[in-house]
């Protein structure tokens, strides 16, 4: 590949590179306003507005079926996969409307990675799992570079020591917690700006959960993280800001400490004190 080709590949594959050079640390990564989501005729989210700050962990909590996962999946347009799902309102990523017709959803998802509730490594080797993203986006020019991307991603996901000697074994053979960290490594390898996590620990035991939480805290330095969780303790442990959803409405957002110690809304208070949910 010639130098020019490589330059163009980089430029198109990583539109975030110019965004990163501008210091916008005070500007929120995501700004959502008036977001409504409908499944068919049923409205799942009503008029949601939230700012998601850079290099912070934002937790979305709320009882089952309150719309928190639905909102999370709006942020990388994962809801597009569902035929009957319709989204209205504005969601801006770095000031750009992600539901703009001009925007390429593939590039959006490269900038906004996702980790799912159930670990879902591909039925491929550990190496191939991590190399998948960089390959499809052309992020590595040579085998050596790809090796490096794979190694750094696994290191940052805290998995390298455990798997460095068996990179060619299937990712599905790892334990649940390791699989989830592999999925995080897979997401990191694409070098996204934001990582969305949809109840990443709900299928894991307490020890694996603790590892993932520790990892989330480290990742905060380089990534903006939005995590949906059922566990209020988890939200309190890992997040700086928390949003509480109830019946499709974002009831309250605020600093995590404030939400858990001094909630403004009665519903939030009832939920965090365990009166329902």
């Amino acid at each position, binding site marked *: 590949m010639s130098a020019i080709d490589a330059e163009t590949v980089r430029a198109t594959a990583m539109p975030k590179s110019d965004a990163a050079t501008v210091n916008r640390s005070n500007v929120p990564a995501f700004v959502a306003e008036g977001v409504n989501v409908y499944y068919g005729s049923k409205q799942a989210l009503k008029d949601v507005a939230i700012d998601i700050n850079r290099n912070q962990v934002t937790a979305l909590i709320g009882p089952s079926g309150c719309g928190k996962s639905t909102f999370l999946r709006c942020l*990388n347009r994962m809801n597009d996969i569902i035929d009957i799902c319709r989204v209205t309102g504005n969601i801006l990523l770095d000031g750009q409307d992600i539901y703009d017709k001009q925007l390429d959803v*593939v590039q959006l*998802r490269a900038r906004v*990675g996702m980790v*799912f509730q159930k670990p*879902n490594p591909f039925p491929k080797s550990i190496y191939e799992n991590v190399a998948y993203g960089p390959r499809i986006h052309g992020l590595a020019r040579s085998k050596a570079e790809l090796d490096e991307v794979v190694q750094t991603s696994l290191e940052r996901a805290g998995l390298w020591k455990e798997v460095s000697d068996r990179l060619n074994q299937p990712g599905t053979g790892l334990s649940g917690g390791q699989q989830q960290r592999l999925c995080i490594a*897979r997401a990191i390898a694409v070098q996204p700006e934001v990582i969305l996590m949809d109840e990443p620990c709900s299928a894991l035991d307490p020890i694996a959960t603790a590892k993932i939480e520790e990892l989330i805290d480290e990742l905060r330095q380089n990534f903006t993280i939005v995590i949906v969780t059922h566990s209020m303790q988890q939200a309190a442990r890992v997040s700086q800001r928390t949003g509480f959803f109830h019946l499709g409405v974002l009831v309250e957002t605020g600093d995590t400490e404030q939400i858990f110690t001094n909630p403004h809304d009665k519903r939030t208070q009832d939920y965090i004190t365990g009166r329902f949910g």
Partner: protein
Amino acid sequence: MSVTTLLIVLLGLSAIGYYLGRARSVRTVAGRTAELHSLPSYHGYYVAVWCGLPALLLVLAWVAIEPDIIRSLLIAKLGDAAAGMSPQALGLMINDVRNLAGGSLVSREPDPVMQAAADYYNHLRFLSRLALTVFGLGLAMAGLTYAWKSIHPRLRARNRVEKVVIVALIICSTIAILTTIGIVLSLIFESARFFTKVSPLHFLFGLEWSPQIALRAGQVGGTGLFGAVPLFVGTLLIAFIAMCVAMPLGLMAAIYMAEYADRRVRAFAKPALEILAGIPTVVYGFFAALTVAPFVRDTGASLGLQISSESALAAGFVMGVMIIPFVSSLSDDVITAVPQSMREGSYGLGATRSETIRRVILPAALPGIVGGFLLAISRAIGETMIVVMAAGLSANLSVNPLEAVTTVTVQIATLLVGDQEFDSPKTLAAFALGLVLFCVTLVLNIIALRIVTRYREQYE
């Protein structure tokens, strides 16, 4: 009473037994059915089974052995007249007696001895039927009475009826299995007879196939060459062409159905595609012979190619179209079985739909797809009607798709069509070919099913 009438009467008795049994069970607990061990209807079935089943078995056994007993009695009666006869002549004689007794035409003028024998035969038949009626109805009544009397609240009628049902189910499945075993055994024994006349090595590795044998001295005809290699090559060639058509078309159709088509298109297109599987193969056959083959030949001619009108290409192409639904519906199943989380994982990394299909879904579904292909191949190899009509009869050893070739199934069909004696190598060869075909498709099916099941377990 004829056997049919007897069976109808037995059925009627069983029905009566059912109502009697049910009524009695209710009466024994004075209407408080909760005190019964089994529901009243089970008591009814219990009586019905006792009434009908033993009598039915008796009738079946009677009908099975009656002809043999009558025959031996008849021979004893004929005595001296039958003593000196060869078995064939005796068989003919007894046939005549039966026909005479039944009032139909006989092969000779009836003489007094035969007339007497026929009368005796009718007499025996009458006795036998009478006895059967008496014993059958007697047994039914006895069973009914016994079961009816044995009804009391703690009778485990349900358990016993269920046991009878289980035995009936076992018998049904056994019949299916035994039939299969019987077919395989007959294939093996007839093939063994064939291999005493023609060496297996010659059969499996011989390069010339010409099964016509002179039946009598001086007749024009070959010496009979049974080298089956041209047939195997022809079969594989046609199956290969068929797979070349069916694999890409079927797989692409499956990918479209599973990944791209929206629900309304899928609801229409999938059944439409599966209609292909419902077309009788004989229809495909004349479609191949009358439409595709001339088209291929004419196209070839306009390109300056000499294509025979019974080309392997035409037969293979139509066979390929026939098995598209197999490939597509099996592939569609395994592609849809790939968990949605795989797709989401890939989309979540910014992969496009085609990248997701090529790099995640197809590799994950590959074992199942391969299994589907193998099933389709075994289907193609065993297919007969299309090749009988569209492929040739002459056993050319050729891999040129433009020439006429013949297949194992075509040869089996032609070897056995028409009046044949069943002990010449020519007809026995059909069994040997059938055995080879059976072994190949069996092995393919076993491999395919193993792959498919192992694949299914992977995600469950």
